[in-house]
């Protein structure tokens, strides 16, 4: 396949995302792992941009890098205790655990890849002209087409966040 500029770009973004993902698995220090995870989300956002869904790419950045990554990092700080909490690399079944995990992941990937490559009928010529998501269309779709789910997601979000906060609230001993 001849590599056009956008093809090159796609491979760059894919390598960035997958690289960051593997880094999350390998890096020992939890804070660094969280930050590399944020980098992986940025890569996924870039892939959305490449696929033309700009709105989703920026939403992905806003939600994951802006809010979720910072939340994760805060929680890591709150749960840092030198003695316990961290990784226990050793343990009797460390080697077995790693091998088992990798084995399952690779097996799944093999199955998925076979399914994807096998589905010849889906092999279609890619439309050449760059297509951009039409914001107004998305807006109308959201407001006209999918009103019940929109409100439902709003409710889910509120309930989840308020619930999260109440769970994590440290009760101030009134006058210790």
């Amino acid at each position: 396949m001849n590599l056009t500029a956008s093809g090159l770009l796609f491979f760059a973004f894919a390598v960035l995302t997958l690289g960051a993902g593997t880094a999350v698995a390998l890096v020992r220090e939890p804070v660094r792992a969280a930050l590399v995870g944020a980098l992986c989300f940025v890569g996924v956002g870039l892939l959305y941009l490449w696929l033309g869904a700009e709105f989703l790419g920026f939403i992905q950045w806003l939600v994951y890098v802006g809010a979720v990554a910072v939340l994760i990092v805060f929680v890591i700080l709150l749960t840092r205790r030198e003695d316990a909490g961290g990784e226990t690399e050793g343990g009797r079944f460390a080697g077995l655990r790693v091998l088992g995990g990798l084995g399952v992941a690779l097996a799944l990937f093999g199955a998925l890849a076979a399914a994807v490559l096998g589905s010849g009928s889906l092999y279609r010529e890619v439309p050449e002209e760059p297509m951009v998501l039409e914001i107004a269309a998305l807006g109308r779709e959201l407001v006209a087409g999918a009103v019940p789910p929109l409100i439902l997601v709003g409710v889910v979000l509120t309930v989840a966040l308020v619930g999260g906060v109440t769970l994590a609230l440290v009760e101030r001993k009134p006058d210790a």
Partner: protein
Amino acid sequence: MAVTIPSDAAPPPGRTSLAFPARRPGLTLAAAAGVLVVGTTLLVLLLDRKAPGILTGAVVEALAHPATAPLILKAGVLGWLAEGWGLGEPWLGLASISLSLFTIVAVFMGLFALTSIVERKVLARIQNRYGPNRAGLWGLLQPVADGIKMLTKEDIVPAGGDRWMHLLAPVMLAVPAFLVLALLPYGPGMTVVELGVGILFFFALGASAEVAVFMAGWSSNNKYSLLGAMRAIAQMISYEMPLLLAALAVVMLAGTLSPTLMVEAQAGHAFGFVPQWFVFTPWGLVGFVLFFIAALAESNRSPFDLPEGESELVAGHMTEYSGFRYAVFFLAEYIGLFGICGFAVALFLGGWHAPLPVLDFIPGYLWFFLKLYGLVLLAIWIRGTMPRVRIDQLLAFSWLFLIPTGFCVLAGAALWHFTGGGWLGWLVVTPVVTAPYFLLLPRLQSAEANALRTYRFSEE
């Protein structure tokens, strides 16, 4: 020699007649301007020999009508490149993008240098002193002096800290600040990158600033930095909401997410002289005040400069930085402020539109930068006056007053749209928009703080 203290309050007895070192400002300025003009003309003529007539034509035409001068000049240079160097298609596209980006970065770096000296001069004049006037004429070379000082200072990474994160943090803060500049609508058709979702891109990049501040605080391995970073993140997150809500109101009314279309939505003049800017509508005014307060908080400017509250935490997350990377933090803060003020101008103050129809002969991009610099000066004036807000008051102020006001501004904008604006609009929207100001703010402070204190005198 009797003690002679003049009638005015307090200046010292007198000054010797020694004149300030003899520098004739007029001459130096004229000389500098002369060198600049002659240099450019020579350069243009020299380059012109490659493809005769194009560059000179473009310059002459640009001087003819300044309103679209940058566009004409850019077209001229591109034509010159195509003609003289015979460049193919991909290179021309690349050249045009890099031309616009280069001018934007040059303009804003110049603005940054200017602001770093203007801020110190204005603060000095507020405090009745001169401000830096040693380096260059009226202290104009002070940024150069600061730059050299920053570059020569040793750049230490604290032991025990996370080396790579410590190096990366300032870059993570500065790059988004510069990227945002590409979205600002400087003039009709002069936006560098025409994004349909400009505002969302601005907020997405704004969100990454928190991660960068955390990285700076965490990797400095220092108690003060960590406390400063925690405060900065709490402040940024809680002030991003009002920013979002105020911008949402404008998005709703302008019907688009791209800043260029928003500025076009504010064109025209009502009753001949009142410009149609959003700031002249009730919800727009409150929205603008909200946006500006949140902008001050987002770029850690006084009275919200908590992270580097030097009276408590030395320099917050920037304590362990020195040398060039401290300058990058300094740069990121200013460029961030320009970016946010630029968006405030685009959203509420009618981007490149002139306030009065008669003033239309001044080019659009000049209006944009005038308004932007007006907001920056306002921020400096506020910095010279107000004491710092405490962290819990800061958060309470945002969550308990700014965000409800944001929702009211949204409601107000909707009502403004349905009542079709005009007197009815003002009548209906104003109470809705100012309700939190009258209801929530007085209750925010404890009742005792609102009471007027009386002081009695013992009689003896």
